[in-house]
């Protein structure tokens, strides 16, 4: 029986050697995608910070720098995610895609006061993989990125209220109260669109279930802040921050 414990004795070795080759290739691709997803996530978070800063001239430059990092990550893995494999590593790339979408939709909102559509987002993400090997953006990742983006809108709105300056929505009016209510109206608009979406089954519904309460909370925090601004606005000292809730922050995703 000793012969079979040494691998040479088993008649199945050639078959398993083929399997080993295939599985090793698969695991290598998977590892590459996981790493890229992680790096895209980190760069996207930085991009969001850059974009969210209220100094407009710095925005473009900082954004481009992070975008280059992101582009090279996607270019590296785009050949691993073509054809049959385009959906094979979706679970692995999904985190990075969502974080990137959070950044892209947030940036797009600050620039245009509009929600970036799925089709536009898909074009932009596809382009990151290079001309012959586009990166696939699923509607699911787009949607989940939009959910997270509401958190950025919240931070942006609250900061804008505190500093009294407001880029983005309704910034043309000099009145900061009206301006902040402009973002708030947009957030409510987005909230009701997200709430109206009907998703019954599958992974997406489970993810949405988690993100929905967080998203609602973000909108409500800005509502509370707007309320505080109206009630106590004129009395506020320098450096005052709007009171968004009474629990304190920390439970909102994205920090």
């Amino acid at each position, binding site marked *: 029986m000793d012969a079979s*414990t040494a691998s040479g004795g*088993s008649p199945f070795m050639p078959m*398993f050697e083929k399997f080993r080759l295939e599985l090793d290739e698969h695991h290598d691709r998977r590892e590459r995608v996981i790493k890229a997803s992680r790096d895209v996530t980190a760069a996207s978070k930085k991009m969001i910070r850059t974009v969210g800063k209220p100094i407009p001239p710095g925005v473009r430059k900082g954004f481009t720098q992070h975008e280059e990092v992101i582009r090279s990550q996607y270019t590296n893995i785009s050949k691993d995610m073509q054809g*049959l494999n385009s*959906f094979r590593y979706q679970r692995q790339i999904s985190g990075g895609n969502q974080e990137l979408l959070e950044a892209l939709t947030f940036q797009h909102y600050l620039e245009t006061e*509009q929600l970036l559509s799925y089709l536009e987002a898909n074009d932009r993400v596809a382009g990151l993989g290079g001309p012959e090997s586009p990166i696939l953006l699923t*509607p699911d990742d787009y949607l989940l990125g939009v959910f997270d983006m509401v958190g950025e809108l919240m931070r942006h709105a609250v900061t804008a209220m505190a500093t009294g300056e407001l880029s983005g929505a309704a910034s043309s009016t000099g009145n900061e109260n009206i301006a902040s209510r402009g973002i708030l109206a947009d957030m409510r608009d*987005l909230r009701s669109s997200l709430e109206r*979406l009907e998703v019954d089954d*599958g992974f997406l519904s489970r993810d949405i279930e988690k993100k929905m309460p967080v998203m609602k909370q973000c909108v409500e925090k800005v509502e509370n802040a707007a309320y505080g601004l109206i009630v106590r606005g004129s009395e506020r000292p320098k450096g005052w921050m709007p009171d968004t809730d009474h629990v304190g922050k920390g439970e909102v995703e994205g920090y």
Partner: protein
Amino acid sequence: MASQQGMVDAAIFEDLQARVDQDATFRDEIKEIVQVLEKQTRTAQSILSKAHSTPTSQINDVITAGNAAIQAEADTVAKLSTTASQQPYYKWNNMWSRQMQDVIFSILLCGWLGANPTEPSGQLLTIERVASILNIPVNLKDRDAFHITIEEYLQALISLLDELARLARNSVTLGDYRRPLQISQFVKDVHAGFQILNLKNDSLRRRSDGIKYRVKEVEDVVYDLSLRNLIPKE
């Protein structure tokens, strides 16, 4: 609606809803077929498990019934293959992967028991032969269509080893002292194969870690037999 002047163009969410709905429709189609398949795999398994109580001399009855059950599975797999191939394979494969493992397992077990009259029992059907019985491709690379994956085949193979470890003891109960030897060699040979695979921390890895216990279980049976001089000579 306020969305005209607001940040959200209503068309964006109409488009998204349509995509989500399309997926839901497709998911229902697949689910219906997979439910049928699941029933058939249970039937096939209950038929094949009669091998544990059937003397080796009458095993052909089990094989014949098993083949019929496998044919029923194959018909459903054909339907699944046609429907599933309309969409990217890996978008949905988690919906049927477990059931496909069960189908492959029934084919492997039936094959091991001696489904092919021109071959002796104890055969390991290759992934290619399993695929040809189901009339579907194997481990595709060049195009996106329904197929058997290596992982599914390996999972089914581990199920086969579990089943054979049980069969080794039950063969003795049925008076067949030769079969445990055959099983012992087979389980060892497959175990040697698994040992060269670099498995990651997934369910395949966890289950394959259990193979060594199957090897030992069957060795214990062989040991018991040899201790009592019950192993047939020649």
